[in-house]
Structure formats: structure tokens, C-alpha cells
């Protein structure tokens, strides 16, 4: 059977090419590949007293650069702390005395784990635990502390009008 070229083939070819181009546009211009595929990462855990609104898949950043993702959040029933598993890209090495803190970024207040490198010679490897952690800042606590300190410093501040004439 000999294939005969028809205008129909041309149209279908154009359609398929346009559809694939649209997919390529979506893949390259609109989306981004997750840079941290399984296998090219190592995981470390960190315990926090309070993780605030941290979610699985939240970014792990160091100096503002995304170096990994949060892959798991569990509750430890013996220490009553949250155990967060971080999956960090292989090119990024951190000393064993690295500090992990939960910070807030962006206009919608999404939370991330910030790593601050320490000075140790030894590097973290797969399965290690980060010992130095700082939990999320809870806004209610902050407001409470602020109110207390305000009340203390200006002792009579609130009472003065009542003492007045």
C-alpha cells in the first residue's frame, strides 16, 4: 500500500504539533520540574517544640535558597514534639551543628524550614538528626508577651486616668 499525502494529513500534523507545543509550553514556561527527585536526596530529621503551620512539601531554605523539601511531619508521643523529616538535595552539605528554624515568608504567610550552617567539621548524612532547632513563632504568644511587658513597664500607665481628678 502506498501512502498518499493529503491535506488532511497536513492538518492533523499541524494539530498534533500545536498540541505538543502547548504541552511543552506548559512544561517549560508555566511549570517547573521539582528539582529534588527521589534518589538524589538525603533525609535528616529535626524535632520542634511547635511547627506552627508547616506543611509537608514546604521548602527547606538556606540563605534563602531552596535546598530541599519537608517530606514528613509526625508527632513523637514520648517527647511530645513534632518530628519533621527534611529531604535535602545531594549537592548541599551541612555541618552536624546546623540550626533548623521554622520561618515565615511570602504574602500568604507560608512557612519554611531555614537551615543555618554551624562550624563543625563533620557533615550531616542520611538519617541524621538536627539537634539545634527553633520552633515556629506563635503570634498569640508574641502578643501575650508584648501585652505583659507593656503592662509591666508602664505600671500606672493604664491606671492614671482612673486616678485623675
Amino acid at each position, binding site marked *: 500500500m502506498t501512502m498518499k499525502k493529503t491535506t488532511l494529513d497536513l492538518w*492533523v500534523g499541524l*494539530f498534533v504539533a500545536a*498540541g505538543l507545543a*502547548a*504541552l511543552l509550553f*506548559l512544561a517549560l514556561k*508555566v511549570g*517547573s520540574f*521539582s528539582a529534588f527527585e527521589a534518589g538524589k536526596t538525603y533525609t535528616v530529621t529535626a524535632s520542634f517544640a511547635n511547627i506552627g503551620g508547616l506543611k509537608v512539601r514546604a521548602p527547606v531554605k538556606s540563605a534563602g535558597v531552596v535546598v530541599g523539601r519537608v517530606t514528613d511531619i509526625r508527632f513523637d508521643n514520648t517527647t511530645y514534639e513534632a518530628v519533621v523529616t527534611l529531604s535535602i538535595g545531594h549537592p548541599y552539605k551541612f555541618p552536624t551543628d546546623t540550626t533548623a528554624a521554622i520561618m515565615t515568608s511570602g*504574602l500568604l504567610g507560608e512557612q519554611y524550614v531555614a537551615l543555618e550552617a554551624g562550624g563543625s567539621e563533620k557533615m550531616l548524612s542520611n538519617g541524621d538528626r538536627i539537634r539545634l532547632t527553633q520552633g515556629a513563632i506563635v503570634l498569640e504568644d508574641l502578643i501575650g508577651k508584648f501585652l505583659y511587658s507593656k503592662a509591666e513597664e508602664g505600671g500606672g500607665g493604664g491606671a492614671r486616668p482612673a486616678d485623675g481628678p
Partner: protein
Amino acid sequence: MPETLITLLRHLGGRVIHSVWRLGMATRFFALTLLYSGTCVRRPHLVVKEIFSAGVLSLIIILVSGLFVGMVLGLQGFETLQTYGSEEALGILVALSLVRELGPVVAALLFASRAGSAMTAEIGLMKATEQIAALEMMAVDPIARVVAPRFWGGVISMPLLAALFSAMGIFGGYLVGVVLIGVDEGAFWSQMQAAVDFRDDILNGVIKSVVFGVVVTVIALYEGYDAPPTAEGVSRATTRTVVSSSLAILAWDFVLTSFMFRGV
């Protein structure tokens, strides 16, 4: 009074049994279509012809509606985001809603009413004019020769159409957001890229559109194949195709979404 109640109950039961029966037959029809798809591999020209009538002929409606949906998203999104002073997130809003939901779903709804109805009417008329019976007389299996190419043509066209719809919609959002209103172009694209993940968002959208393609074409082909061979029968079958494939798309969309975007 009890008689009317019993008649009502009987009627209702009859309708339910009838629907279950049709569902079973449609499933068997789907299995047969897959089974007889060998012809499509041996004669790819049959599929190319169906890609033309299902895909190429739906291009205009898909591209134009994609553009307008994207432009509306741009306007509406801007109005809402402006209240929070975060107009730059417009790119995220437009891209995510198109890639995850609107692209696959609206493209499939348009595809059902544009290409699905045409498939049903065509096959129904072939049946009414006894062309299907003639094929059987010539020992040509109508499922292999008529149904399977249309099925594969639809299934191949659907994801491409959905991708074109999403791309066109994002372009529409860009036109309104960046060109018309003046949202910062760099922020529009970079925030979009940071928020849209290839596997979680784009690939899941493609999977959705493939599933919708299968659902719509199977319903359209089955309704046509099952239509009573009369003018009225074909017209009813065409209406049923649009109604039931639209409902099926929305129901499947819920099921797929609850699988895909749990806890992300």
C-alpha cells in the same frame, strides 16, 4: 392511591434496572473496542482521519474559549487579589486553575458537545441507513472498522486539545493581566513557575484529560451504536451523549481530583 404508588415504584425500578443494563453493555462495548483496536495499528490512516474530525475541527472552539476563559480569569483574579495587594500572584491563580481544573474540564465539555455529538449522530445515522449492517454482511467488523478508529482519534485528540486550551488561557490571562492592566511581567511568570509543579499539576491535568477523552468517546460511540435506527432515535441519542458525558466528566473530575490533590 396505592396503585399509583406501585406504578411509580415500578417505573422507578424499571429505570434503575435499565440504566444498570446499559452501563453493563457500555462496559462490554468498551472492552470490545479495546479488543478490536488492532486494525488501528495496521491502518493508522483511519485514526488520522478521526483525529482530523474530532481534534482539528474542534480547534477553533477550544482556542477561542480558552482565550476568553483565561481573560476572564485574569480580570476576576486581579479584582480579588488587588484587595490583598498581591496582584503579582495573578500568574499563579490563572495557571493553577487552568492547568489543574478548567483546562481539562472545560475542554472536555466542549469536546463532548462538539465532537462527541457528531460521533453519536454519525454512527447513529450509519446504523439507521443500514451501513453498519452492510459492513457486517461483508464480514467487516463494524467495531474494528468504525468504532475503534473514532475511539483512538478522540482519546489522542483530547489531551492535546486540553493542553492547547490551558496554554491559550494562560496567554489570555497574560494579555489581560500584564498587557492591559499592567501587572509586573517578571513577577507574573516567575511566581507562576515557582508555584506550578510539572508532575503534581501539569501531568495530573494531562492524566485527567486522557480519562475524560476515554469517557466522552466511549459514551458518544456507545450512544450512537445503541441508538434506535430512526430519526427521532438518533436525535435523542445525540442529546443523551451531551448530557451524560457532561455529567460523567464532572463526576470523574471529582473522583480524580480527590485522588490527585490530597494533602498537597
